């Protein structure tokens, strides 16, 4: 079952670009990564899906329901964590968590308590006194306390220390194992590669790649390292070349035969060809302007 589906979803702000003809499909049980740098359209996509802003054209559905006309029904089963968590000044953390549960007409007190303990969140503090990290923690509790079927998380780890990031992803993985679909927007590629099963890359408002993280990593570009030389081979097109005392390393997306011919006359002592990391794939997509 497709949990999130967008068809030619477009959002413009006057003459400014938001997202353009986005075709996205997130399946039930996916741990889905949504990758792009700041300003690529990640938050616009999420805000459109959640009904905070309205599409200019195209359609989108969550759980098979239209995001505009059936927004309230959809949000019952969605937990959302924004990139910047802002709450009502003067309220205490426990009041915010309770308000969030109240708006869902659910008693989530036990799960909220469990999450607060795991995240080491002091519920008696006023929200305007919280650090960025603690505001994030309160936001996590609000997003997850009702055990949603779909978790939409926009840059969730910014402001969380590494220990809390680990705990947070631990909680997410548990929810995923329990059957929840996770939609994680991030520009931190290592956390996508480590946690997600599928991912999409967005560039300047357009989707330029959507596949399993494994397949995305198996793109035609390879990381080639030559030892014993300090110059890149001539006659072939390479990217992201780095020269060191030990050798030279670069991304190569062409024919292997052409590569071997190019290095044939070079005094190399060793050569390795590896799959590049997701960060390199991301740069590859960005440099060549999409598939």
């Amino acid at each position, binding site marked *: 079952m497709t949990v999130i589906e967008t068809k030619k979803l477009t959002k413009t702000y006057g003459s400014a670009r938001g997202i353009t003809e986005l075709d996205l499909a997130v399946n039930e049980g996916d741990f889905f990564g949504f990758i792009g740098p700041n300003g690529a359209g990640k938050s616009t996509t999420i805000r459109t899906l959640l009904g905070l*802003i309205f599409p200019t054209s195209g359609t989108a559905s969550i759980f098979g329901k239209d995001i505009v006309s059936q927004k309230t029904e959809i949000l019952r089963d969605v937990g959302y964590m924004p990139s910047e968590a802002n709450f009502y000044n003067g309220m205490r953390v426990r009041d915010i968590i309770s308000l969030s549960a109240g*708006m869902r007409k659910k008693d989530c007190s036990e799960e909220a308590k469990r999450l607060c303990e795991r995240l080491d969140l002091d519920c008696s503090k006023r929200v305007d006194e919280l650090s960025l990290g603690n505001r994030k923690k309160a936001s996590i509790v609000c997003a997850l306390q009702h055990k949603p079927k779909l978790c939409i998380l926009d840059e969730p780890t910014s402001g969380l220390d590494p220990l809390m990031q680990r705990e947070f992803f631990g909680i997410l993985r548990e929810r995923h194992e329990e059957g929840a679909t996770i939609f994680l927007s991030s520009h931190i590629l290592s956390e996508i590669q480590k946690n997600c099963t599928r991912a999409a890359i967005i560039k300047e408002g357009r989707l330029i790649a959507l596949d399993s993280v494994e397949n995305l990593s198996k793109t035609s570009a390879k990381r080639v390292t030559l030892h014993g030389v300090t110059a890149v081979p001539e006659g072939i097109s390479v990217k992201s070349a780095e020269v060191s005392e030990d050798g030279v390393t670069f991304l190569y997306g062409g024919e292997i035969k052409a590569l071997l011919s190019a290095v044939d006359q070079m005094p190399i002592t060793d050569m390795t060809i590896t799959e590049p990391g997701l960060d390199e794939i991301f740069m590859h997509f960005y440099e060549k302007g999409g598939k």
Partner: protein
Amino acid sequence: MTIYIKELKQSAKSWLIWTLSIGFMMLICVMMFPEMESQMDSVTDVFANMGGFTAAFGMDRLSFGELMGFYGIECGNIMGIGGGFFAALAGISVLANEEKERTAEFLLTHPVSRDSVLFQKLMSVFTQIILMNAAVVGISLLSAVIIGEEYKMTEFVLLHAAYLMMQIEIGCICFGISAFIRRGSIGIGLGLALALYFMNIICNISDKAESLKYITPYAYAEASNIISEAEIDMKLMWVGIAISVLAVIIGFMKYLKKDISA
């Protein structure tokens, strides 16, 4: 109900400060009446020689020597300015503050429809205005008991009903405007209430500006008319009710289709 209660809790401190301030000023004013009454001759002379100023505040048709006349002029101005400002602030900030404080994202990503959010917020504005007026009426009645006087109850009730409606109208207009704006709400709210207040003064001074009475809610809450006629100008009040309903409808229409800023 969750949002309605949240709104009331959030505005409780502001409500208390405004209510106590207005109530305290009403109390002081009424307490001053026995002294004013004893100096009535000189006071009347002073006001009689103030030309347009006398008409502007309706003092040409009310007697300072009677509690009801004194109450209408003095307390009317306190309720007009204080109550009007309070209603304007309550209405103008109720939606705009969500975007200004960037809490709209939290609120609107919960399973509550936007029309329900708007309805609960509007009800909270009405509740604050009604409770403030109830408290002020209570303080006014208590003040009269303290000085051993009695109001003319028909005029007193009509006067406060008109003040209440006037504040609700200002609250509704500001609620409607609140749906359009994202920041700078306080200035707009207070400016609007002040503009409407002065429109009524201009209307009282000049016959040429009579048409302004159909715009400003202060016209049907004019104490000199209500106390001297013992009735509210219902024609003006119906116009006020129509403006209120229209402002709320426009506010709903705008907010239901509004892109919420990040």
